[in-house]
């Protein structure tokens, strides 16, 4: 029964136009970034960084490096937005539109229903990140005529690394899975707010407000020493997998924090929803 419910939940998610906004937006954004990178000035800037580090422009200014540039600078906020949009809708929209009452006249338990909905949001989050990763790689490779070597340079993270094609591709795939896992926190927060008596848009806005506030606070120079207190620090653990010797202890801690925060958000949301009166 749960499998059937999950299949129907996914069908609903797929059939809704809103679910596709994130895919369409990233698709368009990737094309825009690639077009802008064709301009001489940005191209020169990347070339300068590569040359300063004695890395060949033609080897490294290729599909994989550009894909990482696209993802690192677009997903953090935009990804959160689209995941929060779907997560914020998943329960609140059904309550708002009245379909929840119809569902709750059936013999399904509320917790079962929430479990299925949360699973659907998690699958959506993974699908969005995988889509983004694959499409970025395909577009950037088509644009530059190949995957090339992977070059990643993020000074704030103390990250500077270069890998040849297969090593780079493996690390790229692994980092996308980690990014999807980290983004679950945003999905779980949006889901939690969606379980409260509020409009779907409020659930989305609240989630984004919390997330953006977290990013802002983390980036204040005074709080650098307590970075690990902020959830965005842990969500960003996918970047750390690109270190030549990834800090596995830190990565495992971040994964644990993400799991704990997501589970707590689900539990709070479920506790609220399972004790809520639903009336027209």
């Amino acid at each position, binding site marked *: 029964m749960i499998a059937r419910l999950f299949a129907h939940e996914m069908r609903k998610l797929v059939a809704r136009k809103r679910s596709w906004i994130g895919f369409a937006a990233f698709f368009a954004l990737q094309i825009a970034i690639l077009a802008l990178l064709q301009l001489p000035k940005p191209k020169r800037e990347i070339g300068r960084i590569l040359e300063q580090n004695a890395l060949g422009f033609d080897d490294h200014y290729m599909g994989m490096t550009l894909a990482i540039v696209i993802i690192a600078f677009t997903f953090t906020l935009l990804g959160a937005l689209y995941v929060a949009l779907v997560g914020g809708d998943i329960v609140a929209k059904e309550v708002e539109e009245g379909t929840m009452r119809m569902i709750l*006249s059936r*013999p399904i338990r509320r917790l079962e229903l929430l479990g299925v909905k949360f699973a659907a949001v998690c699958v959506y989050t993974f699908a969005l990140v995988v889509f983004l990763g694959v499409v970025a790689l395909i577009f950037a490779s088509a644009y530059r005529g190949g995957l090339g070597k992977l070059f990643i340079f993020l000074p704030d993270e103390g990250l500077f690394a270069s890998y040849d094609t297969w090593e780079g591709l493996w690390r790229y795939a692994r980092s996308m899975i980690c990014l999807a896992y980290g983004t679950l926190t945003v999905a779980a927060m949006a889901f939690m707010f969606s379980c409260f008596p509020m409009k779907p848009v409020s659930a989305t806005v609240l989630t984004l407000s919390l997330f953006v506030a977290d990013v802002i606070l983390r980036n204040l120079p005074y709080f650098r020493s307590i970075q690990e207190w902020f959830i965005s620090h842990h969500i960003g653990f996918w970047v750390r997998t690109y270190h030549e010797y990834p800090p596995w202890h830190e990565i495992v801690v971040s994964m644990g924090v993400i799991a704990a925060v997501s589970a707590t958000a689900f539990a709070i949301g479920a506790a609220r929803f399972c004790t809520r009166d639903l009336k027209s």
Partner: protein
Amino acid sequence: MATPNSATPALSIRGLRKRFGKRDAVHPLDLTIQRGEIVGLLGHNGAGKSTTLGCVLGQVFADAGRIEVLGHDPATDRRRALQRVGAIFETPCFYGYLTGMQNLTALAAMSGPLDDDRIAAVVDRVGMTDRIHDRVAAYSHGMRQRLALAQALLPEPELLILDEPSDGLDPAGIVEIRQLVRELHAADGLTVVFASHLLGEVEQLCDRVVVMDHGCKVFDGNWRDTPTSRGIVEIEVDRHDDALRCAIDLALVVGPAPTSRDAATHRWRLAEDATVSELNARLIAAEFSVARIGLLRPQLEDLYLSLRESAHERPAEAAA
């Protein structure tokens, strides 16, 4: 725990109480509906009908009391309590971006295994076969209401809860819903709880009505068998006051009945052994001109309005 069987009431409510903030939505309410009954649930907006039905379906959590649906408590054994219950609400809400069939299969998945033949049979029964593969966004209100009925019938219900099922329907749609409910009741012995503002509909479907007012049950019984509608004559007569006095003197009439509709037509309450023909003959013999006389057909509206009047008088009496 006793195994529920056909002797168990379809619905049993004991001491149900629900508050929203400072407002009592349902005062302690007791109600038993036996299997096979069609019961009308009446009351103005905010009387507590929907809250009661919400508690029955586990959508609203009661503050106190015990509910048993088909012998099971929906609060603790939701699956068994609601397995054979169908429900419709005043505004039929579906996923507009899915087809009617996709909506039905999605809702059917929540009731347990259902085969395609059962879904097709239900769709056919509500007359939706031609449009079931269209998106619900393109459906009229009447079609949505039929789809709502279809989803309620999917689990082969023993108890059907209809909360304003005729709301917003055109006259033909209202008649169709009524006929369908009658058919289901006749064929399957379905128990039906019919909450509606359309007194005419309730009157045609239900013998037993439960009237709620401010969260309290103010009437529960056969509405045709009430003092407000028994032994009342409607009469159009000249010199009305004199005629009434004469009829009372002749011990044919007890007095005027409370609800008269217009100035020309009056209602009198007949004495126990008196008949309309005898009253007519005696008035004519007493040289009154009787333009029209007849026994009043019992009307639910009269009962409902008299209960409403009594309900309004209660707070005034309490204040006095």
